């Protein structure tokens, strides 16, 4: 373990910027979001959690899949996969790292490999940043995470006040030490880091009861519960757009004369068009089926397939839902049914 004094952060990041594309938390329009930084000054490492999720680094909201060009009767198709980009996702929170591990299960599954996601993911070094001050809406500890969980990080930093305790957790992470001008961490630093982590973990005030949830939901698919739940929901979909584990997307062609591109962009199970068929039939015709899909997918279907809950407890959907539909209360109500 090493220690990076605060005044050394700037040169450290500058060095990283020479070799890598660095994505980090920055302030845009009054909230924190992940973007490509060009200088260390743009980093805003004391953010609580970004509004938009860093999953965009691997799964952008909009991306070109391939471009095509017609030449008479035949068409030339050229894939737009990223290859060989070297990137660092700097200062990502443990819940968002866990979300990437869950997305790996979808996009890097055994049956079909999604090269758009995988190439970006594989070319990225993940630098985690512990959460000294979790928000009141964070419930990561209920869903196998924690404010100082190192799971999935290549490199991990703990803010000690006067500097960062730095841990290398993988071969990929080791590469970052090349530009590192810090010293070995002292015993005292390590103890302080542990105390900070313990206190942060104790400070998580939100909980959901994950045990038995999968089984409970199994019996609830046709329950009147959903009739009431959806009445409040506007179907705006913001909860799905801000969720780090939501992975639904749409695909469409954009044509310009004889050339064009196929693109994909995020989509949401809360939109009626998501499942509407050409015949007019919609298997999820009302908010009831749609919100049931969102909850069931996160806490039952995903668990059935991957043995993990597809929620990392980041609390974004709680903070940003315009009608305060609070997933923690929904889970409580499910247990009470």
């Amino acid at each position, binding site marked *: 373990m090493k220690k990076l004094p605060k005044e050394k952060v700037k040169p450290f990041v500058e060095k990283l910027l020479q070799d890598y594309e660095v994505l980090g938390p920055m302030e845009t329009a009054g909230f924190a979001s992940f973007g490509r930084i060009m200088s260390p000054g743009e980093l805003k490492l004391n953010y609580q959690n970004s509004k938009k999720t860093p999953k965009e680094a691997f799964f952008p909201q909009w991306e070109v899949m391939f471009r095509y060009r017609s030449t008479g009767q035949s068409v030339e198709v050229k894939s737009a996969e990223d*290859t060989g980009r070297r990137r660092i996702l700097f200062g990502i929170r443990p819940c968002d790292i866990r979300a990437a591990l869950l997305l790996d299960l979808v996009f890097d599954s055994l049956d079909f490999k999604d090269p758009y996601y995988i190439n970006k993911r594989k070319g990225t070094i993940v630098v985690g940043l512990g959460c000294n001050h979790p928000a009141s809406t964070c419930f990561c500890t209920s869903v196998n995470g924690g404010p100082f969980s190192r799971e999935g990080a290549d490199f991990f930093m703990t803010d000690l006040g006067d500097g960062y305790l730095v841990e290398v957790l993988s071969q990929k992470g080791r590469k970052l030490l090349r530009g590192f001008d810090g010293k070995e961490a002292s015993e005292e630093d390590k103890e302080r880091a542990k105390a900070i982590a313990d206190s942060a973990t104790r400070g998580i005030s939100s909980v959901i009861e994950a045990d038995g949830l999968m089984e409970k939901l199994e019996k609830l698919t*046709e329950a009147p519960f959903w009739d009431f739940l959806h009445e409040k929901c506007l179907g705006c979909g913001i909860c799905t757009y801000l969720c780090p584990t939501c992975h639904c997307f749409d*695909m469409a062609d954009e044509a310009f004369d004889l050339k064009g591109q196929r693109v994909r962009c995020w989509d949401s199970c809360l939109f009626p068009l998501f499942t509407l068929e050409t015949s007019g039939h919609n298997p999820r015709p009302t908010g009831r089926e749609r919100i*049931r899909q969102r909850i069931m997918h996160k806490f039952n*279907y995903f668990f059935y*397939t991957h043995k993990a809950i597809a929620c990392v407890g980041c609390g974004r959907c709680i903070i940003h839902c315009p009608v305060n539909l609070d997933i923690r209360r929904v889970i409580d109500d499910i247990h009470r049914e």
Partner: protein
Amino acid sequence: MTFIGNNAASNSHESLRNPYLPFPMRVERTFVETSDRMLKSFDLAFVDKVDEAAFRFRPGQFCEVSLFGKGEAPLGIASSPTEKPLLKFTVNRAGVVTRALHHLEEGDEVGIRGPLGNSYPVDRFQGKNVVIIGGGFAFTTLRSLVVFMLDHENRKKFKEITVIYGARAPGLLLYKEELAQWEKREDVNLYVTVDKGDEGWNGREGFVPTVVEEVGPSSENAYAVICGPPIMIKFTFPKLADLAFPRERIYTALERRMKCGMGKCGRCNIGPLYVCKDGPVFSYAQLEELPKDY
């Protein structure tokens, strides 16, 4: 179509096969199936030998068919693997892509991704009687299944084969050529019916569920496959139940709105199963376990 940076061509570092990239196929033949001209079949030939060799499919699977600039549509493969190298699709003119597909002419190229999805459990059907019930234009992959089982190499693997197929009117029956051939064969019991005949029709009249009841295929050592409009399924299913077919031995193929066809875009699931990759073929025993989300 020339493919740059394509799967077959690219040898780049740990090159992943990109399952989203369509490969080219050329339209060899187009054929208007129905008198209302809403259904048209296309026989497609592989442009690239590498794609042809890699393409192995079973009856019941589907492809995503691309028309660049318009998009993709999932379409069941109507031909049997025994009819390779051509692939047949039969397309109902419904929306943007399917409408544009109807304008294709011989020599045009389309993009194909697939084969996708599971298939009819033909291995399980071996040594069994198989009853195939189809209605309307849902007969596409059933054509694949019947042609596959009637292939001279395969026919001996199955016992009695019964096909019950209905359409609203004689002009709306698909694959009239094949129906005529099957009619002549001794080794398949074919019952074609229309809701209402016309002057030229001297075949059977009546709805599919009624015909199923009249024919009364035995459920002994038998499997049933049933595909058709929801209303037909709704009334045929009880008839099969009356004939003592257990749910485990009745299969159907489902349709849902699809995009990726690989369980990633998240829209076609019924409970934890994705119709695109865990289906589209399901047994009724399986469907019974799932939320009624279809």
